[in-house]
């Protein structure tokens, strides 16, 4: 009875948005663990495949997006986002629901983004930060909700103070920003509840 | 031997079959058509459209039929359907001054430009049951005339020309319109959101609150400046095409209450407004809404907010009959797990109480 009224087939977009979201949800619920997102569409450089899939799963008319200079690039990424998600682009990082960071070295101070208020800590920006890889670079120990004891993660984010900033971010809890690191089709989340410590060596 | 009760699924199916049967009623009596409901129970259809927030007479009539005449259930059906519809945008503001008026009364002036038009109303009917209606009624056809064209000036606009009433808030072109069905509410809420909430609010709830303001719980001395009912055009700005597209006409009831004046050291005293707007001919709803709208402006107008009708969080959180009926009626769902927890605690407290009183008695007896 109901079945006839269901759209003829559950189209690929609906199902891939669901599977991308589950990967992002699992990553956020289990910080420090690497999850893979099945790529959904070819995205223009410098946007990585997982960034594009995340955008398609979460962005729409209601989510202003801020792009860093690298992401703005020649305008292709912005046009792709407008066309595929309908999300408005904003030049005001403090108004952004999501911010896409293509060059971690040029990451602005986190206070530039919305950190939420004490009453509404959810009114904050989520950062999608593209890095080189999860196999090289400095190692960090992560602790907090979602982590059974502690977990060590590695991230090659080039020359940046990202992790120092994230360690400070955890101290403003419940205000703060949430971060998803992206390398190609892999993601790793560091929500504001995660405490970070650089490993020796 | 104890057997756990199973078969809930069959019970549900059977219950719904019985419901279908009861809905149809006596099969020797002709079944109601949607046209009959829409045409002859039209005020019920109007209410379902207003509180269901969906202007569709056919769907509202279908909902009333499906709900066996339970209007809150019908409103719920319409709301649940509405929630699945995509939102394209907001229409241009409708202009009620060019309404094709079918009824229009003002209590504040004897004569008004455009005239007082009684139209189809229960007012001044003597509420005597009409036995003739028990049979097939065949009223005489009405004479028709050309509709009046042009502007019917609003009474508040007439007052406004002399500055006797506060100006109607100006719409800012391009300003986004709030939508309580798409965004979570937080308090304090702006008037656009309050009016949306009141427009969907349960008619009985608003009626009682409006009445309470008249009896002194947040009194604001209202006059029914004007109540008008008729048809207005709805237009939509098509961004792509770059021009305004007419979508059709809808029937609306508008009520403008004129309320006690205010003033300050810097501002001359003037009347204030309470506003009500509802789909169809929904006069009681529009009037109650206008009273409560004015009451909820207490904060903005610097009045002390002490009465329930002036308490925006109280009014807005309890006005929605779909929410209210769901939560009241959810009490019939099983709660035996929590109840067991309460039972356990109560037994323990009673046992301890009994122990204490026995001990007290023993001490007392020993002392004697």
């Amino acid at each position, binding site marked *: 009875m109901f079945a006839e009224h269901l759209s003829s087939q559950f189209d690929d977009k609906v199902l891939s948005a669901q599977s991308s979201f589950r990967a992002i949800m699992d990553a956020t619920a289990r910080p420090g663990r690497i999850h893979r997102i099945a790529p959904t569409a070819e995205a223009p450089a410098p946007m990585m495949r997982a960034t594009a899939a995340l955008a398609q799963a*979460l962005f729409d008319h209601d989510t202003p997006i801020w792009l860093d200079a690298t992401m703005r690039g020649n305008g292709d990424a912005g046009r792709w986002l407008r066309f595929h998600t309908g999300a408005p682009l904003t030049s005001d990082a403090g108004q952004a629901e999501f911010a896409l960071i293509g060059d971690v070295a040029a990451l602005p101070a986190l206070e530039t983004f919305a950190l939420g208020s004490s*009453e509404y800590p959810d009114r904050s920006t989520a950062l999608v930060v593209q890095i080189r890889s999860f196999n090289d670079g400095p190692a960090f120990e992560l602790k907090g909700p979602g982590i059974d004891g502690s977990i060590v993660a590695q991230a090659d984010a080039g020359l940046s103070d990202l992790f120092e900033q994230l360690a400070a971010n955890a101290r403003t809890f419940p205000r703060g920003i949430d971060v998803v690191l992206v390398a190609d089709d892999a993601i790793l989340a560091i929500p504001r509840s995660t405490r970070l410590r650089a490993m020796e060596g | 031997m104890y057997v756990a009760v199973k078969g809930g699924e069959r019970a549900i199916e059977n219950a719904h079959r019985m419901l279908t049967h009861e809905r149809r009623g006596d099969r020797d009596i002709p079944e109601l058509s949607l046209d009959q409901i829409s045409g002859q129970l039209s005020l019920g259809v109007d209410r379902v459209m207003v509180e269901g927030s969906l202007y569709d007479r056919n769907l509202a009539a279908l909902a009333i039929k499906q709900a066996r005449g339970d209007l809150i259930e019908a409103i719920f059906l319409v709301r649940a359907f509405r929630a699945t519809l995509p939102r394209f945008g907001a229409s241009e503001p409708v202009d009620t001054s060019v309404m094709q008026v079918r009824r229009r009364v003002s209590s504040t002036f004897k004569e008004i430009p455009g005239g007082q038009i009684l139209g189809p109303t229960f007012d001044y009917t003597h509420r005597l049951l009409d036995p003739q209606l028990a049979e097939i009624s065949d009223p005489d056809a009405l004479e028709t005339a050309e509709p009046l064209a042009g502007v019917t000036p609003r009474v508040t606009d007439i007052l406004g020309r002399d500055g006797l009433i506060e100006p109607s808030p100006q719409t800012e072109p391009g300003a986004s319109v709030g939508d309580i069905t798409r965004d979570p509410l937080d308090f304090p809420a702006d008037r656009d959101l309050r009016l949306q909430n009141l427009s969907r609010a349960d008619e009985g709830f608003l009626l009682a609150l409006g009445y309470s303001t008249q009896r002194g719980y947040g009194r604001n001395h209202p006059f029914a400046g004007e109540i008008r009912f008729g048809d207005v055009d709805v237009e939509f700005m098509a961004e792509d095409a770059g021009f305004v597209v007419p979508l059709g006409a809808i029937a609306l009831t508008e009520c403008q209450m004129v309320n006690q004046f205010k003033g300050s050291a810097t501002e001359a005293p003037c009347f204030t407004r309470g506003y009500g707007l509802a789909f169809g001919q929904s006069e009681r709803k529009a009037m109650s809404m206008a009273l409560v709208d004015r009451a909820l402006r207490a904060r903005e107008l610097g009045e002390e907010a002490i009465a329930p009708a002036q308490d925006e969080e109280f009014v807005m959180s309890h006005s929605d009959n779909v929410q209210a009926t769901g939560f*009241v009626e959810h009490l019939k769902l099983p709660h035996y797990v929590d109840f067991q927890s309460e039972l*356990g605690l109560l037994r323990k407290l009673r046992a301890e109480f009994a122990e204490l009183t026995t001990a007290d008695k023993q001490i007392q007896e020993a002392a004697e």
Partner: protein
Amino acid sequence: MTAPVYNFAYLDEQTKRMIRRAILKAIAIPGYQVPFASREMPMPYGWGTGGVQVTAAILGPTDTLKVIDQGSDDTTNAISIRKFFAKTAGVSTTTSTADATVIQTRHRIPEAALSEGQVLVYQVPIPEPLRFLEPRETETRRMHALSEYGLMHVKLYEDIARFGHIATSYAYPVKVNGRYVMDPSPTPKFDNPKMDNCAALQLFGAGREKRIYAIPPYTTVVSLDFEDHPFARYRHEAPCALCGADDSYLDEIVTDDRGGRMFVCSDTDYCETRQASGHRGSERAAPHKKDHAHG
């Protein structure tokens, strides 16, 4: 009239995205109630619309769904919600806690320990733990912002002064990750310890009140108490009459009108699984079909 067309898992994609974003925020801020634009669902408010919206937003075709109400898969509202998803999403359903990837629940947490691959979705009527002390949202929001939870402790302590015990037996408030006081939904306080350091993700949906909140896996969840009145679980002191379990929460079954009663597991899957592996109580259960799944 055009026949309505519905999307996978009923909700339209825009609504799902909005709920998904709220879920991510909820996980990032454990115990904080994220406001969301709850939609009107084709079932009444108060009957699980919040849980249903959360489930609809996370559910995929490879999921296996279990729905319980009062711990049982066969209560009418649980059946109704399970059928809704079998119909609108075509997902497979189960009554087995171990086999489920998503479990939607009202008033209970399953007895069997949950695992990492699972999500537990709670239906929540009143998400605000402070609501019964302070009805105004504007006030309770400020109290959460300032971690000002003294009022809650005062209330619990007044209970002790009057009754000798904390007189809250269900919906017993907890503190999550050392920060937010949270309502666990009207589960019996017997279930509270299961929320602490749980391997599964726990999501809470309140439709009428338009709030979503979460407890990520392995998160500290502490029931509020006092040093001289520590939190204690309550369980009727008896083994289950069907499976003999002495560690499960029990339903009291009134067997006649002369004071006859017996106690059986409220978690029907737990009880049936134990009976299937040979555990017996004082009463023998009637044989019945184990699986009531549809789809």
